[in-house]
């Protein structure tokens, strides 16, 4: 009989692997995602007015509370605090909702990352529970027992609507987390991060409030009218449906140029200009500031959130995901189309100029309604404002000549700038040698 090798994971190992590399802002956004999933269950019609998520923190304490329906005790004891998703969890797919909870680890990972003690209290309409975890104590227990214990539970009650919701408190933050949370600039960064990686839930009325500041829904924009129609493509890959919209936006915010990828209403990739989204690959040129007009949006949706192409921390894409591999050539196609239109203008001022002359209503917000409007496939991107049609394509010529020669020419032509030297010598030659050919 062979000796047994103990390959069971230790709790310490598990926690350290789980929480390693988790960005604090991403961890907080995960907790918000859970609240939003609660809102989706509570309001299947997608209208979240009156629902809120409040985050309040300082250097010693973190709290997130919501009124998004609470967590049923069965879910708490069987799923919410289990690491991973048991196979019998079919309820979400059945309800045909697009949830962001996917891998069964988001909440736990965030809580372990932020603190060594946390407590959670939940009220649904009929049930209430509370639970407290001291991670250090939990780790000390026998490694085979991975359970937590509810400290209170009540069923079959009738709770008033105002109490319904979930509150998570971390009264003891990990030291390096505490230092970061105490920075004013962190609060700014967090608010901006949540704003950028906003979900459509905010658009639909959900209030997200951080230390008293409400997160605004600021949609991205694209030009869309009879002169300029965005690239649109859509389809399904397995259980995942996708929609691609790409086009031009005002150049003024170059940091916003690039690809935006969202999964089930949750933005995962923001303004990407790297090979992740196809730049610099397979015939597509690398991103360059002259392409600051470019905006591309991919919207993935699936009732099986695990099939979506995001990584486990929802901060980027799993590049081996089938859905993403299938969609990437289409992204390159869209990028290529838009770049062609930008480059054929030769002079980038021409695009800025044409775009700035467009009516303000041509700059369309990418909210749910407008995204739904863009439903017809349109894989040829064209851009045909009147000024653009009438343009003369200009190019620059640049060369070096000796200063002495240039000065002599300046004297003869009676000009003072090198630019005029180039321009007038070109005209001189063209008038004498090229006009006869016509």
């Amino acid at each position, binding site marked *: 009989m062979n000796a047994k090798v103990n390959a069971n994971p230790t709790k310490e190992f598990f926690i350290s692997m789980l929480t390693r590399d988790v960005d604090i802002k991403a961890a907080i956004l995960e907790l918000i995602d859970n609240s939003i999933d609660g809102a989706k269950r509570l309001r299947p019609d997608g209208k979240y007015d009156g629902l809120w998520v409040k985050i309040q923190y300082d250097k010693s304490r973190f709290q997130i509370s919501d009124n998004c329906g609470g967590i049923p005790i069965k879910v708490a004891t069987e799923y919410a605090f289990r690491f991973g998703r048991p196979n019998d969890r079919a309820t979400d797919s059945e309800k045909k909702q697009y949830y962001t909870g996917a891998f069964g680890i988001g909440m736990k990972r965030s809580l372990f990352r932020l603190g060594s003690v946390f407590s959670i209290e939940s009220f649904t309409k009929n049930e209430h529970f509370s639970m407290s975890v001291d991670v250090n104590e939990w780790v000390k227990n026998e490694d085979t027992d991975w359970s937590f214990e509810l400290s209170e539970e009540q069923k079959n009650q009738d709770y008033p609507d105002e109490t319904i919701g979930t509150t998570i408190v971390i009264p003891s933050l990990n030291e390096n987390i505490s230092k970061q949370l105490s920075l*004013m*600039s962190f*609060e*700014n960064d967090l608010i*901006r991060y949540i704003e950028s990686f906003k979900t459509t839930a905010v658009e639909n009325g959900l209030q997200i409030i951080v*230390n008293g500041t409400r997160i605004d829904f600021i949609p991205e924009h694209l030009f869309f009218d009879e002169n300029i129609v965005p690239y649109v493509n859509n389809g399904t890959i397995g259980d995942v449906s996708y929609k691609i919209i790409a086009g031009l936006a005002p150049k003024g915010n170059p940091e916003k140029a690039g690809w935006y990828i969202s999964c089930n209403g949750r933005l995962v990739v923001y303004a990407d200009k790297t090979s992740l989204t196809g730049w610099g690959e397979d015939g597509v040129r690398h991103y360059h500031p002259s392409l600051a007009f470019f905006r591309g949006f991919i919207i993935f949706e699936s009732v099986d959130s695990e099939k979506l192409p995001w990584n486990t921390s929802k901060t980027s894409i799993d590049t081996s995901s089938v859905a993403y591999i299938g969609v990437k050539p289409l992204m390159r196609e869209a990028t290529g189309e838009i770049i062609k239109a930008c480059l054929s203008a030769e002079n980038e001022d021409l695009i800025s100029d044409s775009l700035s002359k467009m009516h303000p209503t041509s700059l369309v917000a990418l909210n749910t309604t407008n995204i739904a409007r863009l439903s017809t496939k349109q894989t040829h991107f064209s851009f045909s404002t009147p000024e653009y049609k009438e343009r003369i394509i200009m190019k620059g010529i640049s060369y070096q000549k000796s200063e002495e020669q240039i000065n002599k020419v300046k004297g003869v032509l009676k000009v003072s700038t090198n630019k005029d030297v180039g321009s007038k010598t070109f005209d001189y030659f063209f008038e004498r040698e090229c006009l006869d050919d016509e």
Partner: protein
Amino acid sequence: MLDRKRLIISSKESALTMSNSGEKINYTVRPAKSVERKIICEIVENAELPTPISNYRYIGFGSFYFVDFILFHNTLNIDKMISIERSGKKERFDFNKPYNCIEMCYMDCNAALIHGIPFDGENPDIVWLDYDSSFCKTMINEISTAAQKVAEGSFIFSSFNVDIDCTSNPMDTMNEICGEYLPAAIQAKHISGNNVCNIIFKSIVAAVEKSIYERNSRYSSNISATTVFYVTYSDGIAKMMSIGFYIANTENSAKLLSSKSVQCPFFYKQNAWSATDLNIYRPSEISVPCLTKAEIREINKLLPGNTNDDILSTLTAKGIVLNKKDIERYVSIYKYYPNYFDASFYT
């Protein structure tokens, strides 16, 4: 538009050529600036510091007049001094240097802080980035860089113009000048001529805090930046703002806050933070009233000890007609008031 404003004043010399017929104050003298200089001197002189103030090094933008250099050398006995100048004829600066303990550093401020000036991490500095030009994001970066470089026990001051046009596109304007340090809670409704300084103040404090946090991570230190100075003033039309920090460990920061510096009326009263209530941060206002020498003499005879109301009624009884606001302003800065037009012999 903001780029044009930045180019307007890059040295004190060009500032002197600005003229405005509507002014009550003779801009060539800059009395509020002169008062500010003396206040800063008083704050650092009375602080309880890890080493005597005369051991400090002074780094500033001297221009051709070196007024701050002269004051700090004469009053504080500082004899290690560096003046940073980005443009202008070197021969002119060299010629006008009043003392031989002043070294010139001919490069832009950022380069000077990063490689032009040696920072040994032990000997503290008084750094005064007195820009005079319109506030912009690079100033935040340079103040943050200074916070990373100076030794523990140093002071960093900075002054700039805050005449920002907030009427059209206030959010865009504030985003451009404060960058990522603009408090996320700020909305267009919070931005007004009066509040711009508070927003800028909060942006700078957040940036310096982050810079110190990074520094502490690198050196495993426990430094913090204590705000010691936050004033507004204007000589003529241009509204100016100054901010000052003391960069020190916990022990030395506490010593400063219990030293005589705190009694200076312009020492910053520490406040709690608030996300959106910007009115908590009231800067002290340096305002130099226009009074004749005779009027000043009469007020001085009643100082110290008499209230502003008493002074007003006493003077009125003597037939001296002044308004209460001017008396208040004068009394707040009477010890720093230039009794003659400040003119240096050296320049």
